[in-house]
């Protein structure tokens, strides 16, 4: 068993209303110095050992992310 993390983020040129809302709220809450926020998704997968990197990339690209508007990264963390 391995643990795999997939992070999915809105592409830089794509509007990110959620991140924007967070960024706008922070100063109102008294937190200064945060100049930009982007919000995406974080997936944690429990993966059988025979699942290879190519398959993981495929899962991220075709299913977890929407490549039209999102970028993604896949990384294996410790078992």
């Amino acid at each position, binding site marked *: 068993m391995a643990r795999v993390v997939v992070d999915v983020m809105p592409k830089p040129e794509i*509007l990110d209303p959620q991140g924007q*809302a967070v960024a706008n709220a922070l100063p109102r809450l008294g937190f200064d110095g945060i100049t930009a926020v982007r919000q995406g998704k974080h997936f944690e997968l429990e993966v059988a050992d025979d699942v290879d990197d190519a398959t993981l990339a495929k899962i991220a690209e075709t299913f977890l992310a929407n490549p039209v508007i999102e970028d993604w990264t896949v990384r294996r963390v410790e078992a």
Partner: protein
Amino acid sequence: MSIDTVKNAEATPDQEQPYKELGLKDDEYARIKEILQRRPTDAELAMYSVMWSEHCSYKSSKVHLKYFGDTTTDEMRAKMLAGIGENAGVVDIGDGWAVTFKAESHNHPSYVEPYQGAATGVGGIVRDILAMGARPLAVMDPLRFGKPDAEDTKRVLPGIVAGVGGYGNCLGLPNIGGEVVFDESYQGNPLVNALCVGAMRVEDLHLAHASGTGNKVILYGARTGLDGIGGVSVLASETFDDSAGKRKKLPSVQVGDPFTEKVLIECSLELFEKGIVVGIQDLGGAGLSCATSELASAGDGGMHVWLDRVPLRAKNMTPAEILSSESQERMCAVVEPANVEAFMEVCRKWDVIATEIGEVTDGDRLVITYHDEVVVDVPPRTVAHEGPVYHRPIQRPADQDELQANTPDSLERPENVLELIKIMAASPNLASKKWVTQQYDRYVRGGTVLAQPSDGGMIRIDEETGRGVALSTDCNGRYTKLDPYEGAKLALAEAYRNVAATGATPVAVTNCLNFGSPEDPGVMWQFEQAVKGLADGCAELGIPVTGGNVSFYNQTGTTAILPTPVVGVLGVIDDVRRRIPTGIGAEAGETLLLLGETRDEFGGSEWAHHVHGHLGGLPPKVDLQREKLLGQVLVAGSRDGMVSAAHDLSEGGLAQTLVETCLIGEVGARVFLQGDLFTELFSESAGRVLVAVPRTEEQRFTDMCTARRLPWRKVGVVDPGSKALEIQGLGELPLDELREAWEGTLPALFD
């Protein structure tokens, strides 16, 4: 970053420009040069190319759409406060209220990115309504998809529905109706049309124009980013040179932010209320290019815009990109200098970014500067209103005769008619659309009087008097394919009938004309015929077309979608409390009456489609005088409290109407029919409505029908004690079995 200025353009007359990639033809490019007496700058080229696109310029449809105006009489125009050419049509509905409504397509974007495409489609049409000075009050969403069980339908449908809901729900606009239609021809070309209706006091009507020299042009709402730039990125890659090299081709996808739009709506309404807006324009397709050129073109002077003042979301955007960006949730207002501070104050209250980006000048040019360099200097009319006009070749398709000759007469008719009722109720096109509509808020703002599953949606406009409006959209693309002229009339007839069935009086029409490629003479013939049919139909009914939208190029390869002129009819009701509901059983002992005549008409029918996969013959006959009479009878029936429920007959015929009235009302009925039961139950003859009248009113109501020469027939009684639909001579269908059939289909396909 080197910027292509007017000066530079004059100095480099022979520089090659990627006008072809931007969709301009050789002669169009030549015309731009002739207008400007030089080559256009990059920014000008970007402006002309979007504004002269099919979508913005209506270059293929203009010559045909003119027919709507030609056939609208002064009498039809009497209640029309704004018509074709404005952001949306406006009608006077009485009591000092004006109502504005319009439909728009967002087909292709929704295919590429279903959720965001549909969401921004809703956002766009809502801003159109807002730009008339009205409070948006409700939305509708006529949708078309490919085969229900196709992979691509499974991809696009859930996303589109979630997008319509996600955006509309968050705006606080009740969804009061729409359509979900499946047909193979929409595979790869789903249709996402969105309609919005709004209301205002008559005196608050705002039209988009920039007049008054010295008045300020204020851009407010979201920042401008790289969204939806699509095509124009070919320009960017030529002029944009930072260390990272050329900018990659940008996706032409826009992401919506309904929250920003909601705030924009409230902010705009407060601005209108304070009377500090001279002119207003929404930013939709073609963004600032469109807004500035249209405002200037419709005004009485010129305009100067300082493009470097536009608040940006992305770094290093070129003037061409800023002008072409389709970032959502932006509006452009013209404000007198004395009111600018008050304007800004309201925007601050709502946390809306507002920037003075230009002013109305006394010249006749639209001049746009970028850091003091002139990048655009054009006569605004040439951009906004004097685009190319095409007379595309028109040709009745060679196989049209063959199609019409292939009648459904030889199709095998069923032995078990009772079973067919259930089979048809479960067919994707007739099945309950609850899976879709329950993702939409229909209650917000407390004005919704009728929504799904009623024939038409109805909202209360005035809480004091109860005045309201009803709306329905319809189109049967199979009918239009068989005969585009009659098919368009049939779409009009059905929408009209649906509105009348709620007790409202139809008063105005909008449309969303979805067709294949205008470069195909066969498609152009369908288009021309449909426009004629719709316009002639409106003239016959005496209600004007107040606006609309054209979407071409809905085709895969050489195969076009079914011609789909979606027709929206708006009706007025003086008091929504006398609305007619759809479900029977509200009062004990109701009689079921069938108004209108049934003929053996199965061309383009749902039965032929679902059971035999057949499309051929001629669509049902349409008699608009009959539809008008039917409407008058229904309104009279509602006014005098003679009708307790009504449901029109359309796809699936009487059988489907009976199934729906029973299931919606949650009561059984006993039905007795004469003649051929299959024809009686499944024919799709137009001009028919099933009404339920309390037994005490039966005589009075039927006397009225007889006096007005509207054919009627008693076809059954409501049976509150029974939990079944019983058809004499055929047998019984338990309601729970029917419900399972009717409501089970969409969840089974899409859950």
